[in-house]
């Protein structure tokens, strides 16, 4: 999927994450993580982000995560939503994500 504009999803509530994604044409993935549990789960969060982006076939993207302790499933859901919004896509590849 190709990122063509800014996309945002989530919130700053406890146990949620606010994710902003933007285009990064030809420059790969740029992930900026700011988490209250960075030391404990920073690596795990980056893994979830990269896995999700792999599933969605997103190569070039800027991702900013403001994490307030979201679980993996939440991070994944928020990232998917942000990417769809940023791709201006109306057809979701549901089967790829299940």
């Amino acid at each position, binding site marked *: 999927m190709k990122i063509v504009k*800014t996309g*945002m999803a*989530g*919130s*700053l*509530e*406890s146990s*949620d994450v*606010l994710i*902003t994604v933007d285009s990064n044409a030809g420059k790969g993935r740029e992930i900026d993580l*700011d988490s*209250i549990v960075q030391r404990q789960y920073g690596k795990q969060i980056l893994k979830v982000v990269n896995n999700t982006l792999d599933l969605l076939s997103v190569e070039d993207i800027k991702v900013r995560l*403001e994490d*307030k302790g979201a679980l993996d499933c939440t991070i994944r859901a928020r990232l998917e939503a942000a990417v769809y919004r940023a791709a201006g896509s109306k057809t979701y590849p549901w089967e790829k994500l299940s």
Partner: protein
Amino acid sequence: MFTGQYDVKTINFGRETEKADLREFLAGEDLSLDGDIDYAVCLFEGDRIIASGCAASNVLKCIAVAAPYQGQQLTNRIMSLLRIRAYHEGFPGLFLFTKDINEAVFRDLGFFPLARAPGVILMEDKEEGWRRYLEELNIPEGERGTSAALVMNCNPFTLGHRYLVEMACRENDRVHLFLVKENLSVFPYDVRLKLVREGTADLDNLSIHEGRDYIISHATFPTYFIKEKKVINESHARIDLDIFSRLIAPELGIVRRYVGEEPYCPVTSLYNRIMEEMLPGRGIEVVTIPRKEAAGGAVSATKVRKALAEEDWDTLEGWVPPTTLRFLQSEDGRRIGNLIRKHQEESE
């Protein structure tokens, strides 16, 4: 979005009762509902406001949680709502005004300090966003180095402006003119820029730049644009001058700032006074130039606008350069004249 036991509601500014409730809540938090605020979201317990967050386009302010409700992360909830709204509005970046004691709270919410004044702080949602602005100005190496600066609105460009710019260009090797970008003046930015360019084409040591967010904008100096209220907010002037003197001037080698004497407008004269107080200590000399006198007293853009509304071409000829006069007499210029006249009639 999880909203807990409180109701989320945006304030309808068309309804006086809702506005009055918000104003009352903010007053209790030692905040005031500025005239430029165009969005407000509140948390309610029953019909009572217990937390609020407001925005003047991309500037967030008046974010408060009533004391008995603190400690429930309601600021996070308010900020989520403001951020999502800003996203839907398509703002490329956000600023945030708050009391300095709240700095840590908003740092945790993704904001970085940009400028300070006693008791208040202006934050931005990116670190050193001003650097990008300076890069985008694309100033050639040859135009850097010891220089002077002017910040002007030029609504429109008059012989008074010309006089001030000319003076600066004569006394300095390089002069940077920052033209206020905000489109809240009756002459649109593009027209103001065109008239400044045409009126200064012969001055080859002058560089003209777009003022944008970091120089007298609705973010750094909102009071400038709600002048008619005659609200004088010293903090705003200090925030704007803090950015100029601490971040912009050192990067461009600016050691002098030229300013026209301002005997009429209280907001601008306060701004000038604070400039004289703050800048010299930060290595920038303030040069105040008396107004240029012409037939009928000192030249001012306010008087030019009035004369344009009256289509008093003879007077205008003595106040504006031929380049500006040509525009004023064009169809676009006359249309602006009609606009001013309508405003005047309405306010009478």
